[in-house]
């Protein structure tokens, strides 16, 4: 028989089903009539003849059912009927349906949302051609927390020359810490003016090799031409010719998507030609780059090995494995200095001193994911546990329903439904529920993801690629169907539910309670155990966040408002900027409600180490030179230490007198004081900050230490403070030697204004915008917010983890409580008669409470013990995500156990109390 024939038969059956049903009915009726007629001919009375004929037929309905099930496409029909029947059943029990749908929607929604994060960040390959050929090359210093640091320009160029593994190796620079900006520190963002409104745009400085390595083709216009990114702007430092490529997104948002290539825009006040537009979504290292500029490293900087300013990405040649490239790199590291003919500060395979560093290769995707991978998997695991609990809960609920539906199933079995058909029916009901739950779940996931990205825009990698795509939908569907089958089969697994005779005979009376309840009890125990594990994990992460907020960051971050602004290079360059900033501060200090105001080049908590080589008197490092590594330079303005609330532990802070005094002064932090002059008095010592590298001055004068400030946690409260040097922007200082040298003025382009005020940032917005407009009409205010918000953002990932896990744990706990409550209530309902008898023959109410409570508490305590054991086993997997708390922290465990015990007692208490209030008279009479 051909497939076509079969299909035609199915279609015929569907199309002509009504006629076929009528046919079948008529045919069987004819059969009965003929049989009855024969019997009448043999002398049977008409009624008796018909009855015997029907008996002979063996049940008209059974015969019809058997005929139907032989037909092609019969299963379609059965599914249809099961669906209709299932819908009717679900409509008849709205409470059950609502609870089940809600549970499923939350369970599936949580999983779908987290899976879309897994999908976007981990599973989806990066959006470049052949992304697994892309590797990142980073520097690693053995001393200090500098893992995955940038490369110096010489070693980048040398590696590009030496290697045989890569088709192309390119470099770029983003974010703060890029030294030697054209005329001042450069903060990874520029002011873009096209038309009347300035916008701030995140930018990446790249060379042409990087774009070639990434394999991007411009959506419009062209990329940088060969040599274009090597060309210099007229000023020292980095920054190439005035051309720019826009991201698709910036082109759309700031320029309305109108034709732009060939036109000119202002980048930090200088006209730049737009040569191209990138394709949508194109980025490097998850930087959310909006504008691409040529890097143009100055020849002088190309020689300085100490300036680690470049991020390096390469594309492997076809057929070269990452391992082969690593082997090649390690041979370079054996004798890098000899190969290139230099000594000092070259990469080495065996770094020992603080100046030494080695190089490592890593697949680009791993580099982007970093340690977020573990956090994401922890979330997925947690969401999975929630779904398991939801499944267990639903299975238990469905079991309870199956008990009360035994009669219904028995009647259907009597009317010709086979056992298989009944199981099919319960699975259909399960699938109906779970697919409906899945649809709501996907919606929940969408809403959840959107608010997650809004609340934590930078806490997870690759959030810009976060969508509910086909694979996420497939995942949701798979999870839904699996869930449906899981709790649809559960009642069928209990074979008694279609035990025909007993079900019809004894209705709903108890009997064999033990066996039937064992499954449900096991399910609920498992629920409790899983919930305990989740609650413990959430407890540890909440403790982590609490610990992070309690760390002394080194300054008083409450009641502070901050914003940042990038001043265009004015006519008088740095000098003009410093003066403009001073005018701005003076205006702001007059604002009612503002107690103090200052400015600083870099906000704490999320700084990347800069590691400037800094000359120092009375100090020699391990290689014998009087040069110290300083992790951070901070350029500050008047009233800095008082406004920030940073205590001065020795000497003094910057004062008005320094703005006119002859000698240049610096303040250092405790870590730097100890590192340089451990034990000796740092006041009066001299340092020679690397101003050339940090702000692009042409001279590096000596500075005298006038004070030591308490450490501020620059890189985050969970990191070491690092060594920090404070430089005073308000101190122009006299000419260094003779009049032909310029004054040393050191105002970075981008500064953060900081106000001490009890007002909210939003309340100050208009006033501040007006003040900024007065000194620089085209400069936008960026990132206006409270310092607490800056801090919250810096601990975004632990907060995100803690919040999500707490939500999951709460949900899990709620489900487990409902499960415990449900199984006990059901047990009490079934044992009404027994309890009534007990009460009638003299059991006390307290005794009954104890009887029921015992049942529940056995479940809870087994679950609790299993859960704690499981948590102790698994928690070390996320030990690296914790701060200031051990994965086995006993106080957290104790708190969780108390909470669970209390909640379990409540869940058991209500049914127990109700059992004890039973009136034996009523109960026994009802039987």
């Amino acid at each position, binding site marked *: *028989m051909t497939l076509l*024939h079969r299909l035609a*038969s199915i279609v015929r059956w569907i199309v002509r089903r009504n006629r076929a049903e009528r*046919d*079948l009915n*008529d*045919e*069987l009726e*004819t*059969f009965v*009539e*003929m*049989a009855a*007629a*024969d019997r009448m001919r043999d002398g049977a009375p008409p009624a008796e003849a018909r009855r015997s004929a029907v008996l*002979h*037929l*063996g*049940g008209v309905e*059974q*015969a019809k059912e*058997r*005929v139907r*099930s*032989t*037909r*092609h496409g019969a299963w379609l029909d059965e599914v249809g009927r099961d669906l209709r029947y299932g819908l009717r059943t679900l409509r008849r029990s709205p409470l059950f349906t609502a609870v089940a749908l809600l549970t499923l929607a939350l369970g599936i929604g949580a999983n779908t949302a987290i899976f879309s994060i897994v999908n976007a960040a981990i599973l989806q390959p990066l959006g470049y051609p052949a992304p697994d050929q892309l590797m990142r090359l980073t520097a690693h210093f053995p001393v200090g927390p500098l893992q995955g640091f940038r490369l110096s320009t010489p070693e980048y160029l040398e590696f590009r020359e030496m290697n045989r593994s890569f088709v192309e190796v390119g470099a770029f620079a983003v974010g703060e810490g890029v030294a030697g900006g054209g005329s001042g520190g450069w903060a990874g963002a520029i002011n873009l003016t096209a038309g009347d409104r300035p916008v701030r745009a995140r930018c990446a400085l790249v060379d042409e090799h990087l774009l070639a390595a990434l394999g991007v083709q411009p959506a419009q216009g062209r990329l940088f031409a060969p040599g274009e990114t090597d060309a210099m702007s007229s000023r020292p430092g980095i920054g190439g010719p005035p051309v720019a490529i826009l991201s698709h997104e910036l082109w759309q948002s700031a320029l309305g998507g109108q034709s732009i290539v060939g036109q000119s825009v202002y980048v930090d006040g200088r006209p730049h030609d737009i040569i191209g537009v990138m394709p949508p979504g194109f980025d490097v290292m998850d930087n959310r780059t909006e504008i691409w500029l040529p890097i143009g490293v100055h020849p002088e900087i190309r020689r300085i090995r100490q300036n680690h300013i470049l991020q390096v990405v390469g594309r492997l040649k076809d057929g070269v494995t990452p391992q082969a490239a690593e082997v090649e790199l390690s041979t370079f590291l054996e004798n890098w200095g000899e190969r290139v003919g230099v000594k000092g500060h070259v990469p080495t395979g065996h770094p020992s001193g603080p100046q030494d560093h080695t190089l490592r290769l890593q697949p680009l995707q791993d580099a982007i994911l970093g340690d977020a991978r573990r956090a994401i998997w922890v979330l997925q695991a947690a969401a999975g546990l929630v779904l398991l609990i939801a499944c267990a809960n639903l299975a238990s609920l469905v079991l309870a329903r199956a008990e009360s539906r035994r009669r219904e199933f028995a009647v259907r079995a009597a009317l010709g439904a086979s056992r298989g058909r009944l199981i099919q029916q319960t699975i259909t009901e399960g699938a109906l529920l779970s697919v409906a739950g899945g649809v709501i779940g996907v919606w929940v996931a969408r809403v959840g993801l959107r608010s997650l990205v809004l609340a934590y825009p930078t806490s997870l990698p690759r959030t810009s690629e976060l969508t509910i795509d086909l694979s996420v939908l497939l995942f949701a569907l798979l999870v839904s169907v699996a869930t449906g089958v899981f709790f649809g089969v559960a009642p069928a697994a209990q074979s008694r539910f279609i035990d025909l005779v007993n079900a019809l005979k004894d209705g709903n009376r108890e009997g064999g309670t033990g066996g039937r309840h064992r499954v449900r009890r096991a399910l609920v125990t498992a629920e409790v155990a899983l919930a305990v594990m989740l609650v413990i994990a959430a407890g540890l992460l909440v403790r982590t966040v609490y610990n992070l907020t309690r760390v002394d960051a080194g300054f008083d971050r409450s009641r502070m408002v901050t914003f940042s602004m990038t001043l265009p290079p004015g006519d008088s360059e740095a000098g003009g900027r410093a003066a403009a900033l001073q005018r701005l501060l003076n205006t702001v200090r007059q604002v009612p409600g503002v107690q103090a105001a200052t400015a600083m080049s870099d906000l704490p908590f999320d700084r990347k180490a800069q590691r400037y080589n800094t000359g120092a008197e009375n100090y020699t490092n391990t290689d014998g030179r009087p040069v110290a590594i300083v992790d951070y330079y901070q350029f500050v303005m008047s009233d800095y230490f008082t406004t920030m609330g940073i205590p001065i532990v020795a000497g003094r802070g910057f004062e008005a007198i320094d703005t006119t005094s002859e000698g240049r002064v610096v303040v250092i932090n405790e870590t730097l004081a100890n590192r340089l002059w451990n034990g000796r008095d740092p006041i009066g010592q001299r340092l020679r900050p690397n101003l050339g590298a940090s702000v692009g001055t042409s001279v590096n004068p000596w500075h005298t230490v006038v004070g030591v400030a308490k450490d501020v946690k620059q890189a985050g409260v969970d990191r070491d403070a690092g060594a920090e040097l404070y430089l005073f922007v308000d101190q122009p200082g006299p000419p260094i030697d003779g009049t032909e040298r310029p004054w040393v003025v050191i105002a970075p382009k981008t500064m953060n204004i900081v106000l001490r005020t009890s007002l909210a940032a939003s309340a100050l917005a208009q006033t501040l915008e007006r003040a900024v407009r007065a000194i620089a009409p085209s400069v936008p205010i960026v990132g206006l917010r409270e310092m607490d918000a800056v801090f919250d953002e810096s601990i975004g990932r632990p907060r995100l983890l803690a919040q999500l896990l707490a939500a999951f744990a709460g949900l899990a706990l709620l489900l487990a409580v409902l499960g415990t409550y449900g199984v006990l209530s059901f047990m009490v309902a079934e044992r009404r008669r027994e309890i009534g008898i007990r009460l009638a023959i003299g059991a006390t109410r307290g005794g009954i409470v104890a009887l029921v409570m015992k049942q529940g508490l056995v479940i809870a305590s087994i679950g609790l013990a299993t859960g704690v054991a499981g948590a102790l086993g698994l928690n070390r997997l996320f030990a690296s995500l914790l701060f200031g708390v051990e994965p086995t922290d006993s106080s957290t465990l104790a708190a969780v156990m108390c909470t669970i015990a209390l909640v379990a007692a409540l869940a058991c208490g209500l049914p127990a109390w109700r059992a004890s209030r039973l009136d034996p008279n009523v109960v026994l009479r009802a039987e």
Partner: protein
Amino acid sequence: MEKLDIPQGTLDLMILTILAREPMHGYGISQRLAVLSHEQFQVNPGSLFPSLYRLEQDGKLKAEWRTTGNNRRAKYYRLTASGRRHLDHYRERWNRVSFAVASVLEGA
């Protein structure tokens, strides 16, 4: 006397054989089966009709409503060409099977 169970798979063969002589309705088939088997087989409509429907679906039989001798409307089944081929093939196989079984039983 107790009726025999119809051996697995032979009902179709018997239905086809009966219908090879003349088209017939369901009740007629069941009666003819009883007579031909000397009242040894009695087919239950719960088995007969599924078989008829399956054979019809597979194109071995064709059904049409006709009026009987007693002026009753009934659904008559008749063999199609494909049904006849199937029957020949089927009967040939059955003969071989029963011969083989008989040989084994006699030889044992």
